[in-house]
């Protein structure tokens, strides 16, 4: 278990950590998600011991390591650029951590071979590292970091230097390595897709603070603040007042329309925010479906986003929905056409204001 307790630090007045507390469980794949410059890398470097925090403590498996030198923490670190030692070949890179620990030649060979096999990089072992592709570099760096069996593996944007196709393949590999090596991973990224695909839990970091910690489902579908909702691109966030409360549903008055929402712990008269992801809105030409909430309105805007478009429908409140290019043609949706927006009650997420 990694326990980060009220850590504050700043680096060159540019990046800073402000009273950060977090705890990561043993064996967990924990992703720190945040925009560029939010202090994510600095947090990793503080965990690794490259910087010692101005305030707060870092506790690893019960041991306070706040003042320990990095070489005495047994933590693996992968920088964004991998930083393979350019004057060593692949094998010497992988076994470096064992060599400095005084592991004998046989022990080094054994562990290196094991990792080389597990990452299928046998064909690379005698290559000069400067000739490796991005994906190959990542695998070698991973093997190097894993060789001394670290307690924790810290990954700083491990996919950002790779092209799309290489990335897709290595994402799966990384998950498997995590399982196989039974290592705790803290992975830093600015990519929401990456966080969603990889994380057991996510901590969202903005401007040096952790704003929410939770499962991908909680972060992306049930954010606890409008700030986070906007960051994870929940296009629909409406203000309203709880009007009625029944056993299986509550009714929220948005002014122009009423919505059925999950009752949860709401009370009549409370001011709330209702959130809805655009992917959860089904757009029809106008036939009502079985869903509890069906709104009718006029298309005010279609914003092409590649194979999908964001369609905005004015139904009294503005509803934004994701529609595929084919559906757009099929429903002949154009600006000014009438359309219905249909969504399940369970897709709605309500927070108190």
């Amino acid at each position, binding site marked *: 278990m990694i326990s980060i307790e009220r850590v504050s630090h700043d680096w060159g007045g540019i990046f800073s950590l402000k009273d950060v507390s977090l705890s990561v469980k043993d064996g967990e794949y924990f992703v720190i998600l945040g925009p560029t410059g939010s202090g994510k890398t600095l947090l990793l470097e503080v965990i690794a011991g490259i910087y010692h925090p101005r305030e707060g403590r870092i506790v690893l498996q019960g041991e306070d390591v706040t003042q320990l030198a990095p*070489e005495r923490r047994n933590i693996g*670190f992968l920088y964004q650029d991998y930083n393979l030692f350019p004057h060593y070949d692949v094998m010497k890179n992988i076994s470096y951590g064992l060599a*400095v*620990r005084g592991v004998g030649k046989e022990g080094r060979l054994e562990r290196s071979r094991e990792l080389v096999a597990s990452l299928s990089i046998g064909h690379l072992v005698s290559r000069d590292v400067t000739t490796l592709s991005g994906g190959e570099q990542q695998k070698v760096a991973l093997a190097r970091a894993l060789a*001394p069996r670290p307690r924790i593996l810290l990954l700083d944007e491990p996919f950002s230097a790779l092209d799309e196709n290489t990335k897709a393949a290595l994402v799966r590999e990384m998950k498997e390595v995590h399982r196989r090596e039974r290592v705790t991973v803290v992975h830093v990224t600015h990519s929401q897709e990456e966080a969603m695909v990889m994380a057991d839990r996510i901590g969202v970091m903005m401007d040096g603070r952790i704003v929410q910690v939770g499962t991908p489902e909680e972060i992306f579908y049930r954010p606890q603040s409008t700030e986070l909702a906007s960051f994870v691109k929940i296009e629909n966030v409406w203000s309203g007042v709880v009007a009625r409360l029944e056993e299986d549903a509550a009714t929220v008055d948005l002014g122009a329309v009423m919505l059925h929402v999950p009752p949860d712990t709401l009370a009549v008269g409370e001011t709330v925010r209702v959130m809805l992801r655009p992917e959860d809105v089904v757009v029809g030409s106008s036939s009502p479906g079985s869903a509890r909430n069906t709104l009718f309105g006029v298309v005010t805007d279609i914003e092409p986003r590649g194979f999908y478009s964001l369609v905005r429908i004015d139904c009294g409140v503005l509803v934004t929905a994701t529609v595929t290019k084919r559906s757009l043609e099929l429903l002949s949706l154009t600006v000014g056409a009438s359309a219905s927006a249909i969504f399940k009650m369970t897709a709605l997420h309500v927070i108190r204001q």
Partner: protein
Amino acid sequence: MNADYVKHAVRRNPLSSLFFLIGMTIILFVIAVLFNMLVRQLVINTDGFLAIARDSAVVRSIWLTLYTSFLATVIAVILGIPLAYVMARHSFPGKDVLSAIIDIPVIIPHTVAGIALFSLLMRRGAVGSFFEQLGIVFQDSMWGIVAAMFFVSYPFFVNAAIEGFSSVDPNYERVARTLGANQWRAFRNIALPLARPHLLSGAIMAWARGVSEFGAVVIIAYYPMIASTLILYRFNTGGLGQSQPIAVLLILICFVTFLAMRMATRRR
């Protein structure tokens, strides 16, 4: 093909072509300076040149020059690597001032440096008297030559070394440390080998700068005569005929050594 290429370039880039012609005056000047001297000695005055090359005083002075500059470079490397590493890796108050102090010998007039060194290191000088008790005399001795050469040449090594260490991404050392290497090990295994090309070329430059020095050396140690002193002495007593052969011999030896060292360091 090549003429075509040039014609092409001239039509496309009239400005660059004009600039090239203007710039070539510098190149031609340098070539003329060297060529004139080399031709006079190696082609026209071959016999005289060979006679001088066998003169044992000449050979001894050239050897002394190369050797003292080598010693000065060794000292610059030993003291300069730690200094350069700290300058490249850390920021601290007063770093700008240190950086300015490191550069001082580059902008000090050579005879001024000589006077300053003499004043400090002469037998009755503040430091010289101390060293004399240890048996090391600078005034008119090999150690004076080494001190003067060190003073004017170490900035070439230190600045190259700072550049070298700065060019090594500190993340390499950080990774090494997370892998279990302590600071010294990370320095020795990572920073030092990666900065090595800069360190070697800096050492070569410092050595060449030491060999080239005259003004500072001549004041602290007229004797034993380094090659430059001997050249001026022979020029004053015997004119160009007596001095130019030594100059050519020195420059040939310097070039050969310089190129050999460059090639040896590039091959790795």
